[in-house]
């Protein structure tokens, strides 16, 4: 019949649906027989882990929202009611709060895996850029979520971060007023942050869908960074990678459980257990750990607008990374100098994180400036030059040859 899909499913019900709406064919094509490089290591788990984490956040978040009151007079108490009165409310809340940290751990590893193995290079530029959009959306969502319990750090963090936009020339102050819904962080701010915090995760779901569509067009990169040539180089996604991802998910859940059940306050700030008070500034206003490197970059520049530009610039360089890295070789495995620089960059990011957590005085100021400079040097100078001067190692003929050199001969 014209227009109907030819389904190969035998079950009559599935066949009837599939001929009209080929969902089953699609799932089988994209997650069943989908040809996947056979040489993934466990770092290729982290995309699936991020997906699982997103689902956990949405499910716990929806239930929390049923019990939360986004009003400055009630927000803190309503969170404490969730902790004490709602059945397993403490579990929901601790899973959601620590889930945010787990999400950023998973996504940062996912990103650095991409950096190490050159997953952003042609033809995966757009796939990478969509990923950077997801990171930005996650940051906005995480920031607004942290405001909702309306503790001291919620309030003062919101004040500091929203004030950054006032650095924008001409329209800055109007933007800040718009963000606040008034002339200071107050009830309208909390209301709109709650609304956006509920909205953005679903936007993330949409962009993740695009991320996966783009991934399934180009296919996955792999630790060797060379394209699969024939059937010998790939495996069907199911059962090989469904089971390998499952192993990763189990380990991830164990780490998650240790946090939630035995150290639920590990990533938290004690100051946020005190209700927001606009008249009392905490001794130190520190953002959540996953923003610390960016916070350090912000404070490394002794000029407000300059600092804000550098902070957003730190993400912007990731956007154009596919064109900054001029080397035709993807995997750091075959790029001895890049491999070294990669680890220097990791150290640089950790140091920036430590700088972000400390008062900007003494050695921390110098460290912050040196590492900020190096961060941009890495992306804007070293990577473009490296592609021209680095002597890369010879690439293997194919994935299966590298995996099984004896059999290939």
């Amino acid at each position, binding site marked *: 019949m014209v227009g109907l899909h030819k389904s190969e499913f035998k079950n009559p019900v599935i066949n009837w649906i599939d001929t009209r709406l080929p969902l089953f064919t699609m799932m089988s094509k994209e997650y069943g027989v989908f040809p996947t490089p*056979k*040489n993934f*290591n*466990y*770092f290729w788990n982290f995309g699936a882990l991020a997906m699982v984490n997103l689902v956990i956040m949405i499910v716990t978040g929806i239930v929390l929202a049923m019990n939360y009151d986004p009003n400055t007079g009630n927000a803190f*108490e309503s969170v*404490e009611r969730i*902790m*004490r009165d709602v059945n397993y409310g*403490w*579990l929901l809340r*601790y899973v959601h709060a620590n889930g945010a940290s787990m999400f950023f751990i998973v996504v940062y590893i996912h990103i650095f895996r991409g950096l190490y193995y050159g997953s952003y290079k042609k033809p995966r530029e757009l796939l990478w850029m969509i990923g950077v959009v997801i990171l930005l959306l996650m940051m906005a969502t995480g920031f607004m979520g942290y405001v909702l319990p309306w503790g001291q750090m919620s309030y003062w963090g919101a004040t500091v971060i929203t004030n950054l936009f006032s650095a924008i020339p001409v329209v800055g102050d109007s933007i800040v007023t718009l963000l606040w819904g008034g002339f200071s962080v107050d009830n309208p701010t909390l209301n709109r942050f709650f609304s956006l915090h509920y909205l953005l995760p679903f936007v993330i779901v949409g962009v993740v869908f695009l991320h996966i569509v783009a991934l399934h067009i180009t296919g996955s990169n792999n*630790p060797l960074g060379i394209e699969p040539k024939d059937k010998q180089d790939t*495996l069907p996604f199911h*059962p*090989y990678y469904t*089971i*390998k991802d*499952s*192993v990763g998910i*189990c*380990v991830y*859940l*164990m780490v998650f*459980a*240790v946090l*939630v*059940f*035995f150290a*639920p*306050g*590990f*990533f938290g*700030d*004690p*100051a946020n*257990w*005190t209700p927001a008070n606009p008249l009392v500034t905490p*001794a*130190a206003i*520190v953002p959540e*750990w996953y923003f*610390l490197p960016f916070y350090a970059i912000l404070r490394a520049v002794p000029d407000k607008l300059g600092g804000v530009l550098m902070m957003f610039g730190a993400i912007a360089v990731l956007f154009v990374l596919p064109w900054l890295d001029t080397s035709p070789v993807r995997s750091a*495995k075959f790029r001895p100098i890049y491999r070294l620089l990669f*680890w220097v960059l*990791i*150290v640089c990011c*950790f*140091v920036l*994180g*430590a700088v*972000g*957590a*400390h*008062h900007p*005085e003494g050695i921390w100021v110098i460290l912050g400036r040196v590492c900020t400079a190096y961060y941009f040097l890495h992306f804007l100078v070293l990577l473009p030059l490296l592609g021209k001067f680095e002597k890369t190692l010879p690439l293997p003929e194919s994935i299966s040859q590298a*995996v*099984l050199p004896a*059999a290939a001969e």
Partner: protein
Amino acid sequence: MNIKRFAILGAVFGALLLPATFSAASAEEEISLPKQDWSFSGPFGSYDKASAQRGFQIYKEVCSACHSMKLGYYRELAGIGLSEAQIKAVAAEQTFPTIGDDGQPAERPGTPADHFHSPFPNDKAARAANNGALPPDQTLLTNAREGGADYIYALLTGYEDAPAGVKLGDGMNYNKYFPGHQIGMAAPLSDDRVEYADGTKATLKQEAHDVATFLAYMSNPELETRKRLGLRILMFLAALTCVTYAVKRQIWSDVHH
């Protein structure tokens, strides 16, 4: 493979830098707290109920004169071993405002479902009665302070005469563990400040330990349930991980890699 090197390097960086990253919020205020041995710490920890009950006695007889605990409920005292009748009696000692059947403001005795009665009607009244200082609400106090129960213990036992050269403000007291060392609260506990019903000798250290245990309970009444559930979930996940890994090995056994 690179995995091993990744893992080792990651672990090393993590170990080196994470503690620095997270404990660094108050870099200028480096007062190290003496660590106490708490019944509720560690993965198998649970509250020492006798100690928490003595702590509740101190809260009732001493702290509650100035400090509110307005997010906690009387019924939560069941978690430190008080019987239903005892909780009803404790709650009924306080009266709460209500509207009578005649529509006029009236008072009623407290019930286990009530929040703990606050000593002052509002923060301004609390400040007015305390030389301008606001006694912080105690419900979440051990969570809200760096160091938790160790901090409470240190603060309560940390009063001493101001060192030479330190000028105290009017009505202020010197405490070596309070940030800035000047605290509005006068030393609330001392040897034999209370007479324990169970005959335990009420030394200052004993009192501080007991009340810190009670406050830790009020901050985290879910702690015992949480840790018990966590152990069971971890055991389940450990088994699931082993099974999943075995299945993975089985499925991959025909792949050369």
